[in-house]
């Protein structure tokens, strides 16, 4: 059985998650995949994280907000784009689980809560997945493409929902609130000492905020846990395809390989590997032979021309060597190579040039 090509994923799947390290063109790639779906007649939305202003410009939008904006274009389907807002996504999630408005307001006003979206690691990853789930459940988009934060460890966001659940259900929380609830009198002097010591290090105010938060949150843990479980199931659904985006530089390939290994550990297969910014291969000559030729002609124009060709032959062969192990790791997923483009992407035409490289 052969693995489906990238085009099939774009036409058939409900969800595509683009993962990989920073600076490899992940956001632009996600936008192009969604555009491809629109061209195939689907209603597609792309959710970006921290996009460069250039991408919004390229899509002809003034800016991206946390509500989908429709992108004008001559395709039979529809293309929508939006940006993840971690804080408002979290607020909405709390709103879903709060028993009443009073509880919601207590939490939203809490200083500790306000810190969570910025400070608790994994929160951005979790909210990306939460937004994805929400769009999948509550909208009728045919395809949802999500860009992900530049996470080094894939488990950070595969685990993120569970980690937040664990956090909210934290032992320290129980320790800290126990004395107030009065039910766990067995929570004893040692615990109080522990909390007092923590307070000594970071200040008592800080601990008070945390305790107030956990008290306000009381009763919502179960709802959070159930939803986190559904989000994780959705990620592993057959209808969801994971696309890994990388560049052929040695260090990013190492990171991508690590990422792919962790995904595999987490029970998720990479469906396609997209490698951006490949150096062109002008012929199949060997760098060493060409370099020797350049040396023997040193000082002449022809020598420079050979030197230049040798440089690119070396770069291209190193890139293929770098890529080989990663390609094995994600096999049988197809590897799609995208060469350096002649200019940066400034408009839909620019996105179409990438599309041509990805799909033709």
């Amino acid at each position, binding site marked *: 059985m052969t693995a489906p090509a990238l085009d099939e994923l774009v036409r058939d799947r409900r969800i595509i998650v683009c993962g990989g390290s920073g600076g490899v063109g992940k956001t632009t790639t996600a936008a192009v995949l969604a555009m491809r779906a629109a061209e195939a007649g689907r209603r597609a939305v792309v959710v970006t994280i921290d996009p460069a202003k250039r991408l919004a410009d390229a899509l002809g939008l003034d800016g991206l907000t946390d509500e989908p904006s429709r992108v004008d274009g001559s395709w039979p389907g529809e293309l929508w784009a939006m940006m993840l807002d971690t804080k408002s996504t979290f607020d909405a999630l709390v709103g879903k689980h709060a028993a009443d408005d009073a509880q919601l307001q207590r939490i939203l006003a809490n200083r500790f809560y306000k810190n969570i979206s910025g400070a608790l690691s994994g929160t951005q990853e979790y909210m990306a997945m939460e937004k994805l789930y929400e769009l999948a459940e509550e909208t009728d988009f045919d395809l949802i493409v999500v860009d992900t934060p530049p996470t080094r460890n894939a488990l950070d966001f595969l685990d993120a929902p569970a980690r937040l659940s664990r956090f909210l259900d934290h032992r320290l929380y129980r320790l800290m609130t126990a004395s107030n609830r009065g039910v766990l009198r067995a929570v004893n002097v040692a615990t109080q000492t*522990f909390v007092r010591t923590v307070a000594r290090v970071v200040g008592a*105010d800080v601990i008070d905020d945390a305790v107030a938060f956990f008290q306000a949150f009381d009763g919502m843990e179960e709802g959070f846990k159930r939803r986190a479980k559904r989000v994780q199931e959705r990620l592993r659904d057959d209808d969801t395809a994971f696309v890994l985006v990388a560049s052929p530089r040695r260090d990013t390939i190492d990171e991508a390989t690590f990422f792919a290994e962790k995904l595999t550990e987490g029970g998720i297969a990479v469906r396609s590997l997209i490698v951006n910014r490949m150096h062109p291969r002008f012929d199949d000559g060997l760098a060493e032979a060409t370099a020797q030729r350049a040396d023997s002609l040193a000082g002449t*124009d022809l020598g420079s021309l050979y030197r230049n060709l040798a440089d690119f032959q070396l770069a291209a062969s*190193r890139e293929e060597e*770098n890529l080989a192990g990663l390609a094995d790791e994600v096999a049988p997923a197809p590897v799609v190579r995208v060469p350096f483009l002649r200019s940066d992407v400034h408009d839909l035409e620019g996105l179409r040039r990438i599309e041509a490289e990805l799909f033709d």
Partner: protein
Amino acid sequence: MNPTEYFAASRLLIVAGKGGVGKTVVTAALARAASMAGRSSLVVEVEGKSGLPRMFGQATPEQSGLGYDEQLLRRGGGPDGSADITARTITPDGALLEYLEDHGLSRISKRLVTSGALDVVATAAPGIRDILVLGKVKQLQRAAVADVIVLDTPAAGHAITFLRSAKGLLDAVKVGPIYTQARDVLDLLEDHERCQVILVTLPEETPVNELVETAFSLEDQVGVGLGPVVVNGIYDDLDGLEADPAAAAEQAGVTLRPGEAEVLAEAADFRRHRIELQTGQVQRLSDLLPLPQVRLPFLFESEIGPAEVDALARSVLGAIEALDAEVQLGSPT
């Protein structure tokens, strides 16, 4: 200016930039440049996984990372009189354990880390992880473990968040040892004599935009001194690339194989076009940001080992020698 002066004792160089710009390679080149100038350096990385040992010809495939203990990357001495380069990791958990033990709280330290309570504390006081790492760096700097400390900042996080952590924490925490720690770190960051941030970028549109934005935010929000900007990955220009291959072959008295002229012309055109784009972006960076630039060549040999690091370090030294002493000493702008 004289590189030996540049890497004067007690200097902390903080290398920052978005993912994919080659921050770790630049970190290695800076450390090696210091070593060539006779200054010992300690490289600190914060993620527990780094290609540094490999760049210095040290790693086996199984053991490629760095540990919490200092590790010698390159021994100094020899005819060129270079100095030692060492490296270590500082993780928030490791720094916290050490911090608690130093403050007589070892009783709870293990428990705080293993119970995951650090997550709760870190959320209660955002920036505490970064402060623990920076606090440890400050301690090493004060102990003068090396002439220069080169800090490779986290790739995923933004340099601004990392460096702003001290200020942010001072707002949240008003008393106690963490307050003191944050205060200390801020003093170090704001001391332009002892500490410089080296921003790294690529000669491309978006990285240049992001670097300019970061530079202004760092000056406004953190008050750190900015050192020279490193523009990484610039294609070397070659004379003669505009020549027509057939004519060049005739001139050299060489016969080309069929199709070879086209291949040579295509490759030359590609490089000329990239150089043109890059030159435009480097110029744009100069226009937008009045900081001296250290330009490092693109390495077609992407497997970076000691020879490549040496070559980059020599580029760094050349650029430092060309620096105007007054501009670069981080005098407030």
